[in-house]
Protein backbone atom coordinates (compact mmCIF):
# COMPACT_ATOMS: atom_id res chain seq x y z
CA UNK A 1 0.00 0.00 0.00
CA UNK A 2 1.12 3.51 -0.78
CA UNK A 3 0.09 6.23 1.61
CA UNK A 4 0.71 9.90 0.90
CA UNK A 5 0.16 12.33 3.73
CA UNK A 6 -0.10 16.11 3.50
CA UNK A 7 2.50 16.34 0.74
CA UNK A 8 3.62 19.88 -0.10
CA UNK A 9 6.05 21.03 -2.76
CA UNK A 10 6.66 24.10 -4.89
CA UNK A 11 8.62 23.75 -8.11
CA UNK A 12 8.82 26.38 -10.81
CA UNK A 13 5.24 27.27 -11.72
CA UNK A 14 3.82 24.11 -10.10
CA UNK A 15 2.61 23.79 -6.55
CA UNK A 16 1.36 20.73 -4.69
CA UNK A 17 -0.76 21.73 -1.73
CA UNK A 18 -1.43 19.05 0.85
CA UNK A 19 -1.86 15.89 -1.19
CA UNK A 20 -3.42 12.93 0.67
CA UNK A 21 -3.82 9.62 -1.12
CA UNK A 22 -4.02 5.90 -0.35
CA UNK A 23 -3.41 3.37 -3.08
CA UNK A 24 -3.98 -0.33 -2.46
CA UNK A 25 -1.58 -3.10 -3.47
CA UNK A 26 -2.19 -4.28 -7.02
CA UNK A 27 -4.45 -1.38 -7.81
CA UNK A 28 -4.36 0.40 -11.19
CA UNK A 29 -4.67 3.96 -9.97
CA UNK A 30 -5.07 6.81 -12.47
CA UNK A 31 -4.42 10.45 -11.60
CA UNK A 32 -6.48 12.45 -14.09
CA UNK A 33 -6.17 16.18 -14.49
CA UNK A 34 -5.58 18.99 -16.93
CA UNK A 35 -2.11 20.09 -18.03
CA UNK A 36 -0.36 22.10 -15.33
CA UNK A 37 -2.14 20.42 -12.43
CA UNK A 38 1.19 19.17 -11.04
CA UNK A 39 0.59 15.51 -11.84
CA UNK A 40 4.14 14.75 -13.04
CA UNK A 41 5.63 16.54 -10.04
CA UNK A 42 3.55 14.35 -7.71
CA UNK A 43 4.81 11.26 -9.52
CA UNK A 44 8.42 12.45 -9.27
CA UNK A 45 8.01 13.06 -5.54
CA UNK A 46 6.71 9.51 -5.08
CA UNK A 47 9.76 8.25 -7.02
CA UNK A 48 12.06 10.36 -4.84
CA UNK A 49 13.56 12.53 -7.61
CA UNK A 50 12.70 15.59 -5.53
CA UNK A 51 12.24 16.12 -1.85
CA UNK A 52 8.88 17.35 -0.64
CA UNK A 53 8.78 20.66 1.25
CA UNK A 54 6.57 18.87 3.76
CA UNK A 55 4.58 15.69 4.23
CA UNK A 56 5.33 11.99 4.14
CA UNK A 57 5.21 9.10 1.73
CA UNK A 58 4.77 5.52 2.98
CA UNK A 59 5.26 2.41 0.90
CA UNK A 60 3.87 -0.51 2.84
CA UNK A 61 4.59 0.45 6.44
CA UNK A 62 7.88 2.18 5.66
CA UNK A 63 8.26 5.93 5.55
CA UNK A 64 10.34 6.41 2.36
CA UNK A 65 10.27 10.21 2.36
CA UNK A 66 13.98 10.37 3.09
CA UNK A 67 15.07 7.49 0.85
CA UNK A 68 16.96 8.19 -2.38
CA UNK A 69 15.21 6.93 -5.54
CA UNK A 70 17.57 3.98 -6.04
CA UNK A 71 16.40 2.47 -2.72
CA UNK A 72 12.66 2.65 -3.40
CA UNK A 73 12.34 -0.10 -6.04
CA UNK A 74 9.91 1.96 -8.08
CA UNK A 75 9.67 1.75 -11.85
CA UNK A 76 9.25 5.10 -13.57
CA UNK A 77 8.20 5.66 -17.18
CA UNK A 78 8.47 9.19 -18.56
CA UNK A 79 6.24 10.46 -21.34
CA UNK A 80 9.21 10.77 -23.74
CA UNK A 81 10.45 7.25 -22.76
CA UNK A 82 13.90 8.64 -21.75
CA UNK A 83 15.92 5.79 -23.16
CA UNK A 84 19.67 6.18 -22.67
CA UNK A 85 20.71 7.37 -26.14
CA UNK A 86 24.25 6.00 -25.86
CA UNK A 87 23.11 2.43 -25.20
CA UNK A 88 21.24 0.06 -27.49
CA UNK A 89 17.91 -1.42 -26.47
CA UNK A 90 19.48 -4.49 -24.85
CA UNK A 91 21.86 -2.36 -22.73
CA UNK A 92 18.96 -0.15 -21.75
CA UNK A 93 16.93 -3.14 -20.59
CA UNK A 94 19.88 -4.67 -18.73
CA UNK A 95 20.65 -1.40 -16.93
CA UNK A 96 18.65 -2.21 -13.79
CA UNK A 97 20.15 -5.71 -13.47
CA UNK A 98 23.63 -4.32 -14.07
CA UNK A 99 23.11 -1.95 -11.14
CA UNK A 100 22.20 -4.94 -8.99
CA UNK A 101 25.21 -6.89 -10.21
CA UNK A 102 23.05 -9.47 -11.97
CA UNK A 103 23.99 -10.92 -15.36
CA UNK A 104 20.94 -12.65 -16.79
CA UNK A 105 20.39 -12.48 -20.54
CA UNK A 106 17.50 -14.99 -20.29
CA UNK A 107 15.33 -12.52 -18.40
CA UNK A 108 16.06 -9.85 -21.00
CA UNK A 109 15.11 -12.23 -23.78
CA UNK A 110 11.96 -13.34 -22.00
CA UNK A 111 10.73 -9.82 -21.36
CA UNK A 112 11.72 -8.75 -24.88
CA UNK A 113 9.67 -11.62 -26.23
CA UNK A 114 6.73 -10.71 -24.00
CA UNK A 115 6.79 -7.13 -25.34
CA UNK A 116 7.61 -8.21 -28.89
CA UNK A 117 10.86 -6.27 -29.16
CA UNK A 118 13.25 -9.19 -29.53
CA UNK A 119 14.25 -8.00 -33.01
CA UNK A 120 15.08 -4.47 -31.77
CA UNK A 121 17.59 -5.33 -29.05
CA UNK A 122 20.65 -4.13 -30.99
CA UNK A 123 19.06 -0.84 -32.07
CA UNK A 124 19.56 2.63 -30.56
CA UNK A 125 16.64 4.77 -29.48
CA UNK A 126 17.11 7.31 -32.29
CA UNK A 127 16.21 4.61 -34.81
CA UNK A 128 13.11 3.38 -32.98
CA UNK A 129 9.53 4.59 -33.42
CA UNK A 130 7.65 6.06 -30.47
CA UNK A 131 5.80 2.83 -29.78
CA UNK A 132 9.00 0.77 -29.97
CA UNK A 133 10.79 3.14 -27.60
CA UNK A 134 7.83 2.88 -25.26
CA UNK A 135 8.06 -0.91 -25.20
CA UNK A 136 11.82 -0.87 -24.62
CA UNK A 137 11.30 1.58 -21.76
CA UNK A 138 8.63 -0.73 -20.33
CA UNK A 139 10.97 -3.72 -20.58
CA UNK A 140 13.72 -1.73 -18.85
CA UNK A 141 11.41 -0.95 -15.97
CA UNK A 142 9.76 -4.38 -15.67
CA UNK A 143 13.07 -6.23 -15.57
CA UNK A 144 13.83 -4.84 -12.10
CA UNK A 145 10.56 -6.27 -10.70
CA UNK A 146 9.46 -2.98 -9.17
CA UNK A 147 6.93 -2.87 -6.35
CA UNK A 148 5.22 0.07 -7.97
CA UNK A 149 5.06 1.26 -11.56
CA UNK A 150 4.73 5.03 -12.13
CA UNK A 151 3.56 6.05 -15.60
CA UNK A 152 3.78 9.68 -16.70
CA UNK A 153 1.31 10.23 -19.60
CA UNK A 154 2.50 6.99 -21.20
CA UNK A 155 0.21 7.23 -24.23
CA UNK A 156 0.09 10.91 -25.05
CA UNK A 157 3.16 11.00 -27.32
CA UNK A 158 1.98 8.05 -29.42
CA UNK A 159 -0.16 8.06 -32.54
CA UNK A 160 -3.73 6.74 -32.13
CA UNK A 161 -3.07 3.23 -33.45
CA UNK A 162 -0.04 2.72 -31.21
CA UNK A 163 -2.01 4.19 -28.30
CA UNK A 164 -4.54 1.42 -28.61
CA UNK A 165 -1.95 -1.35 -28.65
CA UNK A 166 0.11 0.18 -25.85
CA UNK A 167 -3.01 0.52 -23.74
CA UNK A 168 -3.58 -3.18 -24.17
CA UNK A 169 0.03 -3.89 -23.19
CA UNK A 170 -0.37 -1.84 -20.00
CA UNK A 171 -3.57 -3.69 -19.19
CA UNK A 172 -2.03 -7.09 -19.65
CA UNK A 173 1.12 -6.18 -17.72
CA UNK A 174 -1.07 -5.11 -14.83
CA UNK A 175 -3.24 -8.20 -14.90
CA UNK A 176 -0.29 -10.58 -15.46
CA UNK A 177 1.96 -9.22 -12.70
CA UNK A 178 -0.47 -7.67 -10.24
CA UNK A 179 1.79 -4.65 -9.98
CA UNK A 180 0.59 -1.50 -8.27
CA UNK A 181 0.36 1.09 -11.04
CA UNK A 182 0.02 4.84 -10.71
CA UNK A 183 -0.77 6.31 -14.09
CA UNK A 184 -0.94 10.04 -14.74
CA UNK A 185 -2.94 11.37 -17.70
CA UNK A 186 -5.14 14.18 -18.96
CA UNK A 187 -7.13 11.85 -21.20
CA UNK A 188 -10.51 10.83 -19.76
CA UNK A 189 -11.04 7.89 -22.08
CA UNK A 190 -7.66 6.47 -21.12
CA UNK A 191 -8.49 6.92 -17.44
CA UNK A 192 -11.90 5.32 -17.73
CA UNK A 193 -10.62 2.31 -19.63
CA UNK A 194 -7.61 1.50 -17.48
CA UNK A 195 -8.38 2.63 -13.95
CA UNK A 196 -9.51 0.64 -10.95
CA UNK A 197 -9.78 3.99 -9.24
CA UNK A 198 -9.31 7.55 -10.45
CA UNK A 199 -8.12 10.64 -8.59
CA UNK A 200 -9.04 13.93 -10.19
CA UNK A 201 -6.22 16.44 -9.72
CA UNK A 202 -6.61 20.12 -10.41
CA UNK A 203 -4.36 23.03 -9.64
CA UNK A 204 -2.10 21.09 -7.26
CA UNK A 205 -4.93 19.46 -5.28
CA UNK A 206 -6.72 16.12 -5.31
CA UNK A 207 -10.36 17.06 -5.87
CA UNK A 208 -12.10 13.71 -6.06
CA UNK A 209 -11.15 10.05 -5.69
CA UNK A 210 -13.36 7.17 -6.77
CA UNK A 211 -14.10 4.39 -9.23
CA UNK A 212 -14.43 5.46 -12.88
CA UNK A 213 -18.23 5.26 -12.64
CA UNK A 214 -18.28 7.41 -9.53
CA UNK A 215 -16.01 10.06 -11.01
CA UNK A 216 -17.59 10.22 -14.44
CA UNK A 217 -21.22 9.82 -13.49
CA UNK A 218 -21.20 11.70 -10.21
CA UNK A 219 -18.55 14.41 -10.48
CA UNK A 220 -18.16 16.19 -7.15
CA UNK A 221 -18.44 19.73 -8.52
CA UNK A 222 -18.91 21.78 -11.69
CA UNK A 223 -15.22 21.99 -12.42
CA UNK A 224 -14.78 18.23 -12.39
CA UNK A 225 -18.00 17.77 -14.36
CA UNK A 226 -16.76 20.15 -17.01
CA UNK A 227 -13.36 18.51 -17.15
CA UNK A 228 -14.54 14.90 -17.39
CA UNK A 229 -16.90 16.01 -20.16
CA UNK A 230 -19.56 13.87 -21.78
CA UNK A 231 -17.73 11.42 -24.03
CA UNK A 232 -19.55 8.09 -24.18
CA UNK A 233 -17.28 5.16 -23.33
CA UNK A 234 -18.99 1.75 -23.25
CA UNK A 235 -17.38 -1.50 -22.15
CA UNK A 236 -18.31 -4.55 -24.11
CA UNK A 237 -17.34 -7.94 -25.51
CA UNK A 238 -16.84 -8.67 -29.20
CA UNK A 239 -19.17 -11.45 -30.25
CA UNK A 240 -18.54 -11.59 -33.99
CA UNK A 241 -16.24 -9.71 -36.32
CA UNK A 242 -15.97 -10.00 -40.06
CA UNK A 243 -15.19 -7.75 -43.02
CA UNK A 244 -14.24 -4.99 -40.64
CA UNK A 245 -17.64 -4.94 -38.93
CA UNK A 246 -17.85 -6.08 -35.32
CA UNK A 247 -20.78 -6.85 -33.07
CA UNK A 248 -20.24 -5.84 -29.46
CA UNK A 249 -22.19 -7.06 -26.47
CA UNK A 250 -22.62 -4.09 -24.13
CA UNK A 251 -24.16 -5.51 -20.99
CA UNK A 252 -26.62 -7.65 -22.96
CA UNK A 253 -27.33 -5.10 -25.69
CA UNK A 254 -25.74 -5.60 -29.12
CA UNK A 255 -23.91 -2.77 -30.84
CA UNK A 256 -22.41 -2.68 -34.32
CA UNK A 257 -19.14 -0.93 -35.05
CA UNK A 258 -16.68 -0.48 -37.92
CA UNK A 259 -13.60 -2.07 -36.37
CA UNK A 260 -11.00 -4.77 -36.93
CA UNK A 261 -11.18 -6.30 -33.45
CA UNK A 262 -11.28 -10.01 -32.67
CA UNK A 263 -14.26 -11.96 -31.42
CA UNK A 264 -13.99 -12.64 -27.69
CA UNK A 265 -12.02 -9.48 -26.92
CA UNK A 266 -13.16 -7.09 -24.24
CA UNK A 267 -13.19 -3.62 -25.79
CA UNK A 268 -14.44 -0.12 -25.25
CA UNK A 269 -16.71 1.67 -27.70
CA UNK A 270 -16.28 5.45 -27.82
CA UNK A 271 -19.00 7.62 -29.27
CA UNK A 272 -19.31 11.38 -29.58
CA UNK A 273 -22.64 12.77 -28.32
CA UNK A 274 -23.17 14.89 -31.47
CA UNK A 275 -23.21 11.71 -33.58
CA UNK A 276 -26.25 10.24 -31.83
CA UNK A 277 -29.65 10.89 -33.40
CA UNK A 278 -32.82 10.93 -31.29
CA UNK A 279 -36.26 10.06 -32.54
CA UNK A 280 -39.58 8.92 -31.19
CA UNK A 281 -40.19 5.88 -33.40
CA UNK A 282 -38.00 3.15 -34.80
CA UNK A 283 -36.75 3.76 -38.30
CA UNK A 284 -34.91 2.00 -41.06
CA UNK A 285 -31.78 3.80 -42.15
CA UNK A 286 -28.04 3.35 -42.54
CA UNK A 287 -27.70 4.04 -38.81
CA UNK A 288 -26.95 0.45 -37.77
CA UNK A 289 -27.47 0.94 -34.06
CA UNK A 290 -30.97 1.80 -32.89
CA UNK A 291 -32.15 1.44 -29.26
CA UNK A 292 -35.14 2.36 -27.22
CA UNK A 293 -34.39 4.02 -23.94
CA UNK A 294 -35.66 6.26 -21.20
CA UNK A 295 -34.62 9.88 -21.09
CA UNK A 296 -33.10 10.32 -17.62
CA UNK A 297 -31.54 13.77 -17.83
CA UNK A 298 -31.84 16.96 -19.89
CA UNK A 299 -29.62 20.01 -19.67
CA UNK A 300 -29.66 23.11 -21.87
CA UNK A 301 -26.27 24.19 -23.20
CA UNK A 302 -26.79 27.23 -25.43
CA UNK A 303 -28.41 26.27 -28.72
CA UNK A 304 -28.10 22.60 -27.80
CA UNK A 305 -29.63 20.31 -25.24
CA UNK A 306 -27.58 17.54 -23.68
CA UNK A 307 -29.78 14.54 -22.98
CA UNK A 308 -28.88 11.37 -21.14
CA UNK A 309 -30.68 8.25 -22.26
CA UNK A 310 -30.73 4.96 -20.38
CA UNK A 311 -31.02 2.19 -22.96
CA UNK A 312 -29.38 -0.61 -21.01
CA UNK A 313 -26.29 1.56 -20.85
CA UNK A 314 -26.16 5.35 -20.38
CA UNK A 315 -25.67 7.51 -23.48
CA UNK A 316 -25.06 11.26 -23.70
CA UNK A 317 -26.42 12.96 -26.83
CA UNK A 318 -26.72 16.51 -28.15
CA UNK A 319 -29.87 17.74 -29.90
CA UNK A 320 -30.92 21.27 -30.87
CA UNK A 321 -33.54 23.12 -28.85
CA UNK A 322 -35.93 22.98 -31.79
CA UNK A 323 -35.54 19.23 -32.09
CA UNK A 324 -36.15 18.82 -28.40
CA UNK A 325 -39.33 20.87 -28.75
CA UNK A 326 -40.61 19.27 -31.93
CA UNK A 327 -39.92 15.75 -30.69
CA UNK A 328 -41.50 16.69 -27.37
CA UNK A 329 -38.55 15.34 -25.44
CA UNK A 330 -39.34 15.13 -21.76
CA UNK A 331 -37.76 13.66 -18.68
CA UNK A 332 -38.86 10.04 -18.24
CA UNK A 333 -40.11 9.62 -21.85
CA UNK A 334 -39.18 6.72 -24.02
CA UNK A 335 -37.09 7.72 -27.01
CA UNK A 336 -35.25 5.99 -29.83
CA UNK A 337 -31.52 6.67 -30.16
CA UNK A 338 -29.56 5.71 -33.22
CA UNK A 339 -26.00 6.07 -34.43
CA UNK A 340 -23.97 4.78 -37.34
CA UNK A 341 -21.54 1.91 -37.00
CA UNK A 342 -18.86 4.13 -38.52
CA UNK A 343 -19.37 6.70 -35.74
CA UNK A 344 -18.23 4.17 -33.11
CA UNK A 345 -14.51 4.17 -32.29
CA UNK A 346 -13.49 0.88 -30.75
CA UNK A 347 -10.40 0.73 -28.50
Amino acid at each position, binding site marked *: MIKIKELHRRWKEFRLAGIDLEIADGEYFVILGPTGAGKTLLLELIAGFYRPDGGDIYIGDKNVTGL*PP*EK*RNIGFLYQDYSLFPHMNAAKNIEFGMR*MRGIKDSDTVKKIAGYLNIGHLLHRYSQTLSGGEQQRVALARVLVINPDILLLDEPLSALDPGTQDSTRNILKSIHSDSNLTVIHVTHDQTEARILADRIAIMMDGRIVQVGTPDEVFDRPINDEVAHFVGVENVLKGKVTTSSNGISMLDIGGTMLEAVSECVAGDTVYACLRPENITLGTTGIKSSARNTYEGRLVEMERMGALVRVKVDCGFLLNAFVTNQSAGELGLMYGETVVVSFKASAVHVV
Partner: protein
Amino acid sequence: MGFLTKQKSANNRRTDPLMLLFYILSLVLLLFVFVVIANMIIGQVMTDLSGLVDAASSKPVLKSIFLSLYAGFLATMISLLLGVPTAYILARKNFTGKRFVESMLDVPVVIPHTVAGIALLTVFGANGLLGAPLQPYIQFRDAMPGIVVAMLFVSAPYLTNSAREGFKNVDPKLENVARSLGAPLWKTFAIVTLPLASRHLLIGSIMCWARAISEFGAVVMIAYYPMIGPTLIYDRYLSQGLSASRPIAVLLILVTLVIFITVRILSAGWRVYDKD
Protein backbone atom coordinates in the same frame (compact mmCIF):
# COMPACT_ATOMS: atom_id res chain seq x y z
CA MET B 1 13.99 29.24 -75.92
CA GLY B 2 16.98 27.20 -74.83
CA PHE B 3 18.10 26.54 -71.28
CA LEU B 4 21.10 28.84 -71.58
CA THR B 5 19.02 31.91 -72.38
CA LYS B 6 16.86 31.19 -69.42
CA GLN B 7 19.84 30.84 -67.13
CA LYS B 8 21.01 34.22 -68.34
CA SER B 9 17.73 36.01 -67.81
CA ALA B 10 17.50 34.57 -64.34
CA ASN B 11 20.90 35.86 -63.43
CA ASN B 12 20.76 39.33 -64.92
CA ARG B 13 20.26 40.67 -61.42
CA ARG B 14 23.48 42.25 -60.18
CA THR B 15 24.91 41.71 -56.72
CA ASP B 16 23.61 44.44 -54.44
CA PRO B 17 26.22 47.20 -53.85
CA LEU B 18 25.96 46.76 -50.07
CA MET B 19 26.72 43.04 -50.36
CA LEU B 20 29.66 43.89 -52.61
CA LEU B 21 31.01 46.24 -49.93
CA PHE B 22 30.43 43.54 -47.31
CA TYR B 23 32.30 40.96 -49.39
CA ILE B 24 35.24 43.34 -49.73
CA LEU B 25 35.37 44.20 -46.02
CA SER B 26 35.13 40.58 -44.95
CA LEU B 27 37.85 39.70 -47.42
CA VAL B 28 40.06 42.34 -45.76
CA LEU B 29 39.52 40.73 -42.35
CA LEU B 30 40.11 37.24 -43.68
CA LEU B 31 43.26 38.27 -45.54
CA PHE B 32 44.59 40.13 -42.47
CA VAL B 33 44.44 36.98 -40.36
CA PHE B 34 45.49 34.67 -43.16
CA VAL B 35 48.44 36.76 -44.35
CA VAL B 36 49.79 37.30 -40.84
CA ILE B 37 49.84 33.56 -40.13
CA ALA B 38 50.71 32.28 -43.60
CA ASN B 39 53.41 34.86 -44.16
CA MET B 40 55.26 33.79 -41.03
CA ILE B 41 55.04 30.09 -41.78
CA ILE B 42 55.72 30.33 -45.53
CA GLY B 43 58.42 32.99 -45.06
CA GLN B 44 60.21 30.69 -42.63
CA VAL B 45 59.93 27.66 -44.86
CA MET B 46 60.97 29.56 -48.01
CA THR B 47 63.78 31.74 -46.77
CA ASP B 48 65.16 29.87 -43.80
CA LEU B 49 64.21 26.22 -43.83
CA SER B 50 67.51 25.32 -42.19
CA GLY B 51 66.68 27.63 -39.29
CA LEU B 52 63.43 25.73 -38.79
CA VAL B 53 65.24 22.41 -38.93
CA ASP B 54 67.84 23.68 -36.46
CA ALA B 55 65.13 24.88 -34.09
CA ALA B 56 63.29 21.58 -34.39
CA SER B 57 66.46 19.75 -33.33
CA SER B 58 67.58 22.24 -30.69
CA LYS B 59 67.29 20.87 -27.22
CA PRO B 60 66.26 24.09 -25.39
CA VAL B 61 63.59 24.75 -28.02
CA LEU B 62 62.12 21.27 -27.80
CA LYS B 63 62.34 21.40 -24.03
CA SER B 64 60.41 24.68 -23.88
CA ILE B 65 57.71 23.45 -26.26
CA PHE B 66 57.44 20.21 -24.31
CA LEU B 67 57.21 22.22 -21.10
CA SER B 68 54.37 24.29 -22.62
CA LEU B 69 52.48 21.17 -23.63
CA TYR B 70 53.16 19.40 -20.33
CA ALA B 71 52.34 22.31 -18.04
CA GLY B 72 49.25 22.99 -20.15
CA PHE B 73 48.29 19.33 -19.78
CA LEU B 74 48.64 19.50 -15.99
CA ALA B 75 46.60 22.71 -15.88
CA THR B 76 43.92 20.99 -17.98
CA MET B 77 43.86 17.96 -15.65
CA ILE B 78 43.39 20.20 -12.61
CA SER B 79 40.74 22.16 -14.55
CA LEU B 80 38.94 18.87 -15.17
CA LEU B 81 39.13 17.88 -11.52
CA LEU B 82 37.77 21.22 -10.31
CA GLY B 83 35.80 22.41 -13.34
CA VAL B 84 33.67 19.32 -13.98
CA PRO B 85 32.06 19.30 -10.52
CA THR B 86 31.57 23.07 -10.74
CA ALA B 87 29.99 22.77 -14.16
CA TYR B 88 27.67 20.00 -12.97
CA ILE B 89 26.47 22.05 -10.02
CA LEU B 90 25.95 25.12 -12.22
CA ALA B 91 24.02 23.03 -14.76
CA ARG B 92 21.76 21.30 -12.25
CA LYS B 93 21.27 23.44 -9.18
CA ASN B 94 19.71 26.82 -8.59
CA PHE B 95 20.88 28.85 -5.63
CA THR B 96 21.04 32.47 -4.61
CA GLY B 97 24.22 34.09 -5.79
CA LYS B 98 24.54 31.74 -8.76
CA ARG B 99 25.03 34.63 -11.14
CA PHE B 100 27.81 36.00 -8.93
CA VAL B 101 29.55 32.63 -8.89
CA GLU B 102 29.28 32.31 -12.67
CA SER B 103 30.62 35.82 -13.13
CA MET B 104 33.50 35.24 -10.72
CA LEU B 105 34.51 32.08 -12.56
CA ASP B 106 34.56 34.02 -15.83
CA VAL B 107 36.67 36.94 -14.59
CA PRO B 108 40.00 35.35 -15.64
CA VAL B 109 38.83 35.46 -19.28
CA VAL B 110 38.77 39.24 -19.38
CA ILE B 111 41.51 40.17 -16.91
CA PRO B 112 44.68 41.72 -18.47
CA HIS B 113 47.35 39.06 -18.52
CA THR B 114 50.04 40.86 -16.55
CA VAL B 115 47.41 41.88 -14.00
CA ALA B 116 46.68 38.19 -13.55
CA GLY B 117 50.42 37.68 -13.13
CA ILE B 118 50.62 40.32 -10.41
CA ALA B 119 47.54 38.91 -8.68
CA LEU B 120 49.00 35.39 -8.77
CA LEU B 121 52.30 36.68 -7.39
CA THR B 122 50.51 38.36 -4.50
CA VAL B 123 49.09 34.99 -3.52
CA PHE B 124 51.74 32.50 -4.67
CA GLY B 125 54.90 34.63 -4.42
CA ALA B 126 57.48 33.95 -1.73
CA ASN B 127 55.74 36.48 0.53
CA GLY B 128 52.28 35.70 -0.75
CA LEU B 129 49.17 34.61 1.11
CA LEU B 130 49.72 30.95 0.19
CA GLY B 131 53.27 31.19 -1.18
CA ALA B 132 54.78 32.09 2.21
CA PRO B 133 53.33 29.24 4.32
CA LEU B 134 53.92 26.77 1.47
CA GLN B 135 57.52 28.00 0.95
CA PRO B 136 59.19 24.99 2.66
CA TYR B 137 57.18 22.51 0.62
CA ILE B 138 56.52 23.98 -2.78
CA GLN B 139 58.10 26.75 -4.78
CA PHE B 140 55.96 28.73 -7.26
CA ARG B 141 58.31 31.56 -8.36
CA ASP B 142 60.39 30.52 -11.35
CA ALA B 143 59.25 26.93 -11.09
CA MET B 144 56.86 24.50 -12.72
CA PRO B 145 54.08 24.90 -10.11
CA GLY B 146 53.99 28.64 -10.84
CA ILE B 147 53.58 28.00 -14.57
CA VAL B 148 50.77 25.51 -13.94
CA VAL B 149 48.97 27.83 -11.51
CA ALA B 150 49.13 30.71 -14.02
CA MET B 151 47.88 28.50 -16.84
CA LEU B 152 45.15 27.07 -14.63
CA PHE B 153 43.94 30.54 -13.70
CA VAL B 154 43.49 31.73 -17.28
CA SER B 155 42.31 28.48 -18.86
CA ALA B 156 39.95 26.85 -16.32
CA PRO B 157 36.91 28.98 -17.36
CA TYR B 158 37.03 27.52 -20.88
CA LEU B 159 36.65 24.00 -19.57
CA THR B 160 34.03 24.92 -16.99
CA ASN B 161 31.87 26.73 -19.53
CA SER B 162 32.03 23.96 -22.10
CA ALA B 163 31.33 21.28 -19.50
CA ARG B 164 28.37 23.23 -18.13
CA GLU B 165 26.93 23.43 -21.65
CA GLY B 166 27.46 19.68 -22.00
CA PHE B 167 25.75 18.83 -18.72
CA LYS B 168 22.86 21.15 -19.56
CA ASN B 169 22.33 19.13 -22.75
CA VAL B 170 21.90 15.92 -20.75
CA ASP B 171 18.23 15.58 -19.87
CA PRO B 172 17.90 15.30 -16.06
CA LYS B 173 15.09 12.82 -16.69
CA LEU B 174 17.72 10.33 -17.89
CA GLU B 175 19.45 10.69 -14.54
CA ASN B 176 16.15 10.29 -12.70
CA VAL B 177 15.40 7.11 -14.64
CA ALA B 178 18.85 5.71 -13.89
CA ARG B 179 18.35 6.44 -10.19
CA SER B 180 14.95 4.73 -10.14
CA LEU B 181 16.53 1.70 -11.86
CA GLY B 182 18.83 1.34 -8.87
CA ALA B 183 21.91 3.41 -9.73
CA PRO B 184 23.26 5.56 -6.91
CA LEU B 185 24.24 9.10 -7.87
CA TRP B 186 27.89 8.33 -8.55
CA LYS B 187 27.07 5.44 -10.86
CA THR B 188 24.45 7.55 -12.62
CA PHE B 189 27.02 10.28 -13.09
CA ALA B 190 29.67 7.87 -14.35
CA ILE B 191 27.50 5.71 -16.62
CA VAL B 192 24.86 8.13 -17.89
CA THR B 193 25.85 11.77 -17.42
CA LEU B 194 29.57 11.71 -18.23
CA PRO B 195 29.32 9.67 -21.45
CA LEU B 196 26.51 11.88 -22.74
CA ALA B 197 28.47 15.05 -22.00
CA SER B 198 31.74 13.62 -23.24
CA ARG B 199 31.90 15.60 -26.47
CA HIS B 200 31.61 18.89 -24.63
CA LEU B 201 34.11 17.72 -22.03
CA LEU B 202 36.64 16.78 -24.69
CA ILE B 203 36.23 20.00 -26.64
CA GLY B 204 36.39 21.99 -23.41
CA SER B 205 39.56 20.17 -22.40
CA ILE B 206 41.24 20.90 -25.71
CA MET B 207 40.18 24.55 -25.64
CA CYS B 208 41.50 24.72 -22.09
CA TRP B 209 44.79 23.15 -23.15
CA ALA B 210 45.16 25.52 -26.12
CA ARG B 211 44.45 28.53 -23.92
CA ALA B 212 46.98 27.32 -21.35
CA ILE B 213 49.67 26.93 -24.02
CA SER B 214 48.93 30.36 -25.49
CA GLU B 215 49.41 32.26 -22.21
CA PHE B 216 52.48 34.47 -21.88
CA GLY B 217 51.82 37.54 -19.68
CA ALA B 218 50.70 35.76 -16.53
CA VAL B 219 53.28 33.00 -16.80
CA VAL B 220 56.24 35.26 -17.52
CA MET B 221 55.62 37.24 -14.36
CA ILE B 222 55.45 34.30 -12.00
CA ALA B 223 58.02 32.13 -13.81
CA TYR B 224 60.40 33.45 -16.46
CA TYR B 225 62.35 30.24 -15.87
CA PRO B 226 61.96 27.42 -16.70
CA MET B 227 61.04 28.86 -20.06
CA ILE B 228 57.84 27.79 -21.77
CA GLY B 229 57.59 28.15 -25.55
CA PRO B 230 56.10 31.67 -25.60
CA THR B 231 58.72 32.88 -23.11
CA LEU B 232 61.58 31.39 -25.12
CA ILE B 233 60.25 33.16 -28.23
CA TYR B 234 60.19 36.45 -26.32
CA ASP B 235 63.65 35.83 -24.83
CA ARG B 236 65.24 34.94 -28.18
CA TYR B 237 63.54 37.91 -29.82
CA LEU B 238 64.98 40.30 -27.23
CA SER B 239 68.45 38.78 -27.26
CA GLN B 240 68.89 37.63 -30.86
CA GLY B 241 66.15 39.29 -32.90
CA LEU B 242 63.29 38.22 -35.12
CA SER B 243 65.09 35.70 -37.28
CA ALA B 244 66.18 33.69 -34.22
CA SER B 245 62.75 33.57 -32.61
CA ARG B 246 60.63 33.00 -35.70
CA PRO B 247 61.45 29.29 -36.19
CA ILE B 248 60.31 28.58 -32.63
CA ALA B 249 57.11 30.53 -33.25
CA VAL B 250 56.45 28.50 -36.40
CA LEU B 251 56.99 25.24 -34.52
CA LEU B 252 54.69 26.32 -31.72
CA ILE B 253 51.94 27.54 -34.08
CA LEU B 254 52.02 24.22 -35.93
CA VAL B 255 51.46 22.41 -32.66
CA THR B 256 48.66 24.81 -31.78
CA LEU B 257 47.00 24.47 -35.17
CA VAL B 258 46.94 20.70 -34.88
CA ILE B 259 45.13 21.03 -31.58
CA PHE B 260 42.78 23.62 -33.01
CA ILE B 261 41.91 21.62 -36.11
CA THR B 262 41.17 18.65 -33.87
CA VAL B 263 38.63 20.75 -31.97
CA ARG B 264 37.02 21.88 -35.23
CA ILE B 265 36.66 18.36 -36.52
CA LEU B 266 35.32 17.10 -33.20
CA SER B 267 32.83 19.92 -32.83
CA ALA B 268 31.54 19.41 -36.36
CA GLY B 269 31.30 15.65 -36.53
CA TRP B 270 30.40 14.35 -33.14
CA ARG B 271 26.80 15.44 -32.69
CA VAL B 272 25.07 12.13 -32.14
CA TYR B 273 24.01 12.62 -28.55
CA ASP B 274 23.21 16.31 -28.70
CA LYS B 275 19.70 17.22 -27.73
CA ASP B 276 19.01 19.34 -30.76
